[in-house]
C-alpha cells in the first residue's frame, strides 16, 4: 500500500472520529444515552489517535529513516500524561471534580499553545499572514486558558483564597497586558518574524490569564471554567489551522461553540452578563461570618422537632447547595429521603441551575448517591410545587433561596430563585449564619416559617435520619 492510500484512509478515520464527537455530544442530551454518547466520543478519539500514529509511521521521511527520538517522545509523553490523567480521574472525589476538569482544561490549552510556539520557533521566514494570525491567536488564547484554568483550579481546591483578590491597580495592569498582547500580535501579523516579540506576547498572555481570574470569586468559577473550556476549544481549532489539520479544527470549533453556549446559559441563570462576571470583585467570597441573629430574629430548631415535621409530611422538597457538596452529605441526604419515602412521604429535590460549583454539580453528586434522576427537578419545573409543599429542607444552599432577589436593590436582585419561602414550613441545615457568596443576609432565615438547624450538613442529616428512625 503506497503512502497516498494510507493518507486517504487516515483522513477518513479522522472524519469518522469527528463524526463520533458530534454524535456523542448529541447522545448526551438524555441521561439514558449520555454514558453511551461519551463512550462513542472516546471511541472516536481512539480511532483518530491510532490513525495518526499509523500515518506518522508510514510517512516517508527526507532521508528514509525513522525518527526514533520522535517516537520515544510520543511514547514517554503518552505514558506520563495518560498515567497522571488516569490516576487523578479515578481517585478524585466527586466533590473535587470541578477543579480536576479545570486542570484538564489547563493542560489541553497548554498543549495547544505549545504547538504554536514550537511551530513559530521552527520558522525560517515570516509565514503566510493568514497562518500567522492563527499561530499568534493560538499562543495567546492557549496561554490565557492555561494560566487562568490553573488559577481557577487552585481557587476551588482552596490553594488560593476563594474570595475575589483585588490586585492594586489591577484593572490598569490587565488593560496594559491586553494592549501589549494586541500590539505585539499586530507587529507579528504585519509580517515581522521576531522570537523575542513572540515570547513577550506569551508572557503577557500568561500573566493576563492570572490577573483575569484572580479577582473573580470562587462561586463564579463555574462560569469561568466554562468560558476557559470554550477558549481551549478555540485554541485547539487555531492549532488545526497552524498544522493544516481538519480534525483539530472540527473538534476545537465544536468545543468552542459548546463552551460559549454553556457559559451564556450559566450567566443567564444568575441573571448576570458574562462580562459582569469576568470584571469580578462580586461579593465577599465564602466564610464571611456574622453573629447569629444579625438583621432579624432567627428561630433555632432541634433535630427531633424536624424529624417529626418530616415524618408526618405529605410532600418534602430538598434544596441542596454547595454546603452539601463540601460536607460530602449526598449519601446522608439520600438515606434520609429513602427513609421518608418508606413512610409514604413524597420526596423531591429542587435543583437550582447554579447550585454548587458547576452547572449540574448537584445532579452529579446526588446521582453518585444513587438518587434516581426523575426525582431531581429543575427550577422552573419545581417552583410551582413549593406552594403545595409541607416541608422544604434546605441543605447548605443560600443565595439561590434568598427572597431579596425578587426586589431591586440587592446584589442578587433579578436572579431567579427557588420559591422556598412558599412552602408551609422551612428547615435550613447550616453550620452558622455565615453569608453566601453574594455577601448578604438571607431573608429566608428570618422568615417566621423557618427553623434553623445549626449543624454540618452531613452531621445534621445523620441526626435527622436517626431521629426519624426512632419515631
Amino acid at each position, binding site marked *: 500500500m503506497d503512502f497516498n492510500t494510507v493518507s486517504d484512509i487516515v483522513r477518513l478515520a479522522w472524519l469518522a472520529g469527528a463524526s463520533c464527537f458530534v454524535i456523542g*455530544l448529541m447522545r448526551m442530551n438524555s441521561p439514558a444515552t449520555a454514558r453511551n454518547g461519551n463512550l462513542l466520543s472516546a471511541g472516536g478519539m481512539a480511532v483518530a489517535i491510532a490513525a495518526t500514529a499509523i500515518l506518522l509511521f508510514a510517512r516517508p521521511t527526507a532521508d528514509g529513516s525513522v525518527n526514533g527520538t520522535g517516537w520515544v517522545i510520543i511514547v514517554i*509523553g503518552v505514558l506520563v500524561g495518560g498515567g497522571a490523567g488516569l490516576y487523578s480521574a479515578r481517585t478524585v472525589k466527586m466533590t473535587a471534580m470541578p477543579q480536576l476538569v479545570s486542570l484538564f482544561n489547563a493542560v489541553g490549552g497548554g*498543549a495547544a499553545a505549545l504547538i504554536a510556539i514550537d511551530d513559530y520557533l521552527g520558522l525560517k521566514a515570516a509565514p503566510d499572514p493568514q497562518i500567522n494570525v492563527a499561530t499568534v491567536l493560538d499562543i495567546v488564547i492557549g496561554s490565557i486558558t492555561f494560566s487562568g484554568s490553573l488559577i481557577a483550579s487552585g481557587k476551588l481546591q482552596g490553594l488560593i483564597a476563594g474570595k475575589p483578590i483585588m490586585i492594586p491597580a489591577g484593572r490598569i495592569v490587565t488593560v496594559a497586558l491586553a494592549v501589549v498582547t494586541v500590539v505585539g500580535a499586530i507587529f507579528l501579523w504585519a509580517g515581522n518574524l521576531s522570537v523575542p516579540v513572540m515570547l513577550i506576547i506569551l508572557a503577557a498572555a500568561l500573566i493576563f490569564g492570572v490577573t483575569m481570574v484572580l479577582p473573580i470569586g470562587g462561586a463564579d468559577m463555574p462560569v469561568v471554567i466554562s468560558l476557559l473550556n470554550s477558549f481551549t476549544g478555540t485554541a485547539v481549532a487555531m492549532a488545526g489551522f497552524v498544522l493544516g489539520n481538519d480534525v483539530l479544527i472540527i473538534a476545537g470549533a465544536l468545543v468552542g461553540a459548546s463552551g460559549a453556549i454553556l457559559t451564556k446559559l450559566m450567566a443567564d441563570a444568575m441573571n448576570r452578563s458574562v462580562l459582569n462576571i469576568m470584571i469580578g470583585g462580586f461579593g465577599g467570597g465564602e466564610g464571611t461570618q456574622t453573629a447569629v441573629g444579625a438583621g432579624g430574629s432567627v428561630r433555632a430548631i432541634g433535630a427531633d422537632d424536624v424529624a417529626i415535621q418530616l415524618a408526618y409530611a405529605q410532600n418534602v422538597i430538598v434544596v441542596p447547595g454547595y454546603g452539601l457538596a463540601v460536607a460530602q452529605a449526598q449519601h446522608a441526604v439520600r438515606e434520609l429521603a429513602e427513609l421518608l419515602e418508606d413512610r409514604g412521604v413524597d420526596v423531591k429535590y429542587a435543583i437550582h441551575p447554579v447550585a454548587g460549583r458547576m452547572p449540574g454539580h448537584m445532579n452529579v453528586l446526588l446521582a453518585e448517591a444513587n438518587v434516581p434522576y426523575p426525582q431531581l427537578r429543575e427550577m422552573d419545573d419545581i417552583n410551582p410545587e413549593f406552594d403545595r409543599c409541607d416541608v422544604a429542607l434546605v441543605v447548605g444552599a443560600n443565595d439561590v433561596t434568598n427572597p431579596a432577589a425578587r426586589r431591586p436593590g440587592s446584589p442578587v436582585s433579578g436572579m431567579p430563585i427557588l420559591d422556598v419561602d412558599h412552602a408551609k414550613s422551612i428547615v435550613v441545615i447550616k453550620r452558622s449564619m455565615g453569608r453566601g457568596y453574594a455577601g448578604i443576609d438571607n431573608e429566608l432565615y428570618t422568615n417566621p416559617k423557618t427553623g434553623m438547624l445549626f449543624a454540618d450538613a452531613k452531621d445534621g442529616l445523620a441526626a435527622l435520619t436517626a431521629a426519624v428512625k426512632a419515631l
Partner: protein
Amino acid sequence: MSPELLSALTVFVLAILVGFAVISKVPATLHTPLMSGANSIHGIVLVGSMFIAIEATDLASQLLSLVAVAFATMNVVGGYVVTDRMLQMFKKKPVAPKTVDLTAEQAEG
C-alpha cells in the same frame, strides 16, 4: 487566500454551527458531564502534539513536544474517564441487587 485555507475556514465555521445546534438541546442536569465531555474532546490536540513530536529535531522542539504530548494525553485520558465516572451514576433505580437475588433464587430452585 489559498484553497486549503478557504476549505479549512469552511470546516471551522460549519463545525461551530454544528456545536451550537447540538449543545443548545442538552438539559441542565447534564451540564457538568457535558462540560467535562467537551473538555475531553479538545484533547484531540494530542494528534497535533504527535505531529510536532515526530518532526522535532532540535532539543527545544523535543522538550516542547514532550510536554505537549504529555499534557494532551492527560487531557484525553483523564477527561473521558472522569466523564464516564460521572455518567455511570445516572441510573434510574438501583436494579442490581434484584437481579442478584433472582439468580440466587434460580440457583436454589
